[in-house]
């Protein structure tokens, strides 16, 4: 048995009368990958913030390499060799990679800080060395906002390693990564483990935990509900793995994995047909048809025109050429509002930027898009508070949104519940075509299932769903047909029943004969 890199004993932390963590004990072995699995709100992030000195626990003990430790700030944690890669990146976009890496690490003396020239050359040199050692291929002089999400994540890891971190905490590292990028990250983590780094992986994605972790601790409602070793045999697909996964899901959500209802193929006329659509920039002659009663999933590496396609469809981006027809009528000349009136609905990719207003109430957020008169008032000049609350309550009930009251600010809800409200609101338009962009990104299993069920129900009513997703598991779970986007065009399509993961990977990467990733 290897020695413990980090040991937490009976850690408790409460916010008001809610226990974020309750008597949590955890032992992480050196040079292993330890998974911390749990639904959103299970207390994983709080626990790791305690370990990283960003939050101080109400009670409990912390040991690093067998020595008791007490952290008052993240600087203390760094000094003990604990580095953290946050879910929200802490890189400064307008700084170069090297500048981001040396930020806050300079000299302590007055002269060294205020007078002496900052040695960026040496920093760049060291960045390159470190980056080469782990095969990251990061340019030290690149500005961070020019990097892809995957590359930024690597910079974050470099940042932690730079300070000599021997234990690395990663909080949902693949939440924003495309499948090939995630795979690359997995290899990086395996490499780190081989070189003796301890990794704590916070995740709610079972497959990645099964693929990577030596051991996994499951949290639910702030407490440890299980601790399992993942044997080598269980990492490969097969009977042992399935049993283990079922066991972990049950621990995580306290019941069996919710079953998504079965698909029944239909043969209805097209709802959406796109011909030769171009915006002169990112979308380049795109053709696509979505039939009624069908969920079409568009997959692709992030940044290949997914967001632009959605913007074109909802009328937020200027079209140069091509046609978009909804139920046979051309909608290209219509405004966004007119398109919605024609039967479009949209679950936005970036919830906070375009689907909800954080500091407004549930009721207000529920009525967005419905406020020009009916159904809340007879004229555009007033809104009925009573009708709006009733509507909000209806949405809350329909999607089982957990909220204290309809007057609560939406930012007080968890991400999953916010998303459920958005989904309920968009479904309330009774859409002919639902555009769902990354509808389950960052959601836990229960919320994800709720969103999937809503999309499937819509499909069963004969409407069309255009699903944009980076998560292939999700695509295979709900979609009827899959289309791959690359460089602003659809480069391949396949019914889900006959879809071949290797072929899809090749379409996504554009490598016709390359080994699948």
């Amino acid at each position, binding site marked *: 048995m290897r020695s413990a890199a980090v040991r937490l004993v009976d850690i408790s932390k409460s916010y008001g009368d809610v226990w974020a963590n309750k008597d949590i004990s955890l032992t992480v072995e050196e040079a292993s990958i330890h998974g911390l699995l749990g639904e959103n709100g299970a207390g994983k992030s709080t626990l790791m913030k305690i370990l990283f000195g960003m939050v101080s626990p109400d009670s409990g003990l912390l040991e690093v390499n067998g020595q008791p430790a007490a952290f008052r700030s993240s600087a203390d944690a760094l000094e003990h060799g604990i580095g953290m890669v946050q879910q929200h990146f802490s890189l400064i976009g307008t700084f170069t990679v090297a500048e981001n890496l040396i930020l*806050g690490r300079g000299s302590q003396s007055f002269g060294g800080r205020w007078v002496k020239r900052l040695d960026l050359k040496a920093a760049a040199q060291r960045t390159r060395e470190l980056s080469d050692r782990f095969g990251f291929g990061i340019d030290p002089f690149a500005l961070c906002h020019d990097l892809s999400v995957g590359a930024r994540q690597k910079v974050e890891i470099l940042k932690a390693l730079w300070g000599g971190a021997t234990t690395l905490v990663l909080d949902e590292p693949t939440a924003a990564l495309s499948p090939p990028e995630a795979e690359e990250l997995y290899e990086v983590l395996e490499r780190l483990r081989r070189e003796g780094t301890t990794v704590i992986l916070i995740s709610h994605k079972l497959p990645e935990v099964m693929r990577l972790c030596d051991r996994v601790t499951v949290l639910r409602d702030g407490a440890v509900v299980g601790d399992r070793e993942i044997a080598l045999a269980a990492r490969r697909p097969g009977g042992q793995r399935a049993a283990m996964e079922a066991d972990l899901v049950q621990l995580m959500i306290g019941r069996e994995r919710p079953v998504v209802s079965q698909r029944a193929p239909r043969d209805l006329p097209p709802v959406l047909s796109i011909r030769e659509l171009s915006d002169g920039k990112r979308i380049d002659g795109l053709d696509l048809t979505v039939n009624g009663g069908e969920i079409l999933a568009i997959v692709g590496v992030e940044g290949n025109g997914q967001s632009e396609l959605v913007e074109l469809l909802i009328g937020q981006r200027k079209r140069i050429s091509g046609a978009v027809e909804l139920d046979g009528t051309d909608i290209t000349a219509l405004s966004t509002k007119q398109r919605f009136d024609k039967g479009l609905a949209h679950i936005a990719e970036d919830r906070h930027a375009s689907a909800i207003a954080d500091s407004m109430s549930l009721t207000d957020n529920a009525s967005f898009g419905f406020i020009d008169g009916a159904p809340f008032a007879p004229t555009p000049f007033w809104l009925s508070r009573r009708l709006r609350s009733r509507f909000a309550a209806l949405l809350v009930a329909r999607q089982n949104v957990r909220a204290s009251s309809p007057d609560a600010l939406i930012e007080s809800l968890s991400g999953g519940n916010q998303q459920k409200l958005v989904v309920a609101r968009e479904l309330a338009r009774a859409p002919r075509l639902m555009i769902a962009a990354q509808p389950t990104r960052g959601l836990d299993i229960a919320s994800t299932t709720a969103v999937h069920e809503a999309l499937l129900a819509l499909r069963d009513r004969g409407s069309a769903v255009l699903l944009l997703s980076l998560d292939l598991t999700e695509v295979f779970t709900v979609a009827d047909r899959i289309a791959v986007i690359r460089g602003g065009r659809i480069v391949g399509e396949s019914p889900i029943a006959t879809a071949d993961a290797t072929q899809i990977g090749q379409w996504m990467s554009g490598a016709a004969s390359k080994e699948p990733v």
Partner: protein
Amino acid sequence: MDILTISLVISAIHLGVPIILPMLGGLVSERSGVMNIGLEGMMLGGALAAVAVTFITGNPWLGLLGAIVSGLLSGLILAILTVTLRGNQVVASTAINLIGAGITAALVPIIWGVDGTSPSVPKIPSMTIPGLSDLPVVGPLFSSLTAMDYGTFVLAIVVWWVLFRTDAGLRIRAVGESAESADAAGIAVVRTRFIAVMTSGAFAALGGAYLSIVTLDVFQASMTQGRGYLALAALVFGKWRVWPALAACIVFGLADAFALRSQIVGIGIPHELLLALPYVLALVALATFVGRTSAPAGVGKPFVRA
């Protein structure tokens, strides 16, 4: 037409320096993420403090010191309002302007018993640099500038070096771009912002003191005439970088000098229009550049630790 002479350059410097100083202050503050619209009020405070201390001690250099103290103090107030109490930065610094204008105007009759203008005090003398001042054409330049004019340009170099070449500058800019990221990197966000905002106050106050004990030898109510705002315009114009912003200040100074000279020389344009020239330039600068500027991303956002 005797308008483009070395004396025009000299007066452009004389009129540019009191914009450059608050501009440098604004730069430091905004690079740390605190919008400082209060430069104007801080300048007035510095102008009055300089005259009052000089009046009491008879030494304009001590007056300068007094201005620095008043600037640090007004910076401290702004920092407490915006950083500690996390008040809205625009509202808080506008309050500094209103209070600065009000208090200084009210203090003149309290200190000297007269309204509006203080009695004369000794000025900071101009330096004659031996050798250089005997040169043809540019000679007068080296006999009519003061230590403060030279000091301002040295200060600009210092600000540029510290902000863009040292570790401290990287920290300050990091705080201004993203306080959360800086905090995660172990940088003391609150302390950094306090230092930056107080420095900003000191620089602005020096700009005010320049007007009252270098350009003139008295304090007059509202004597800054919007130079604090011109400094902000220069910042936007220069995209929060030292040299372009400094160039903008010189252009404003030149426009001002031109307007004053035209009054004497008479070039057939109503001089009231020319007097408005720097402000018109500022307006044009703001209107054309404000939409696509590169302000530090964290400006205006109070920092709360999660």
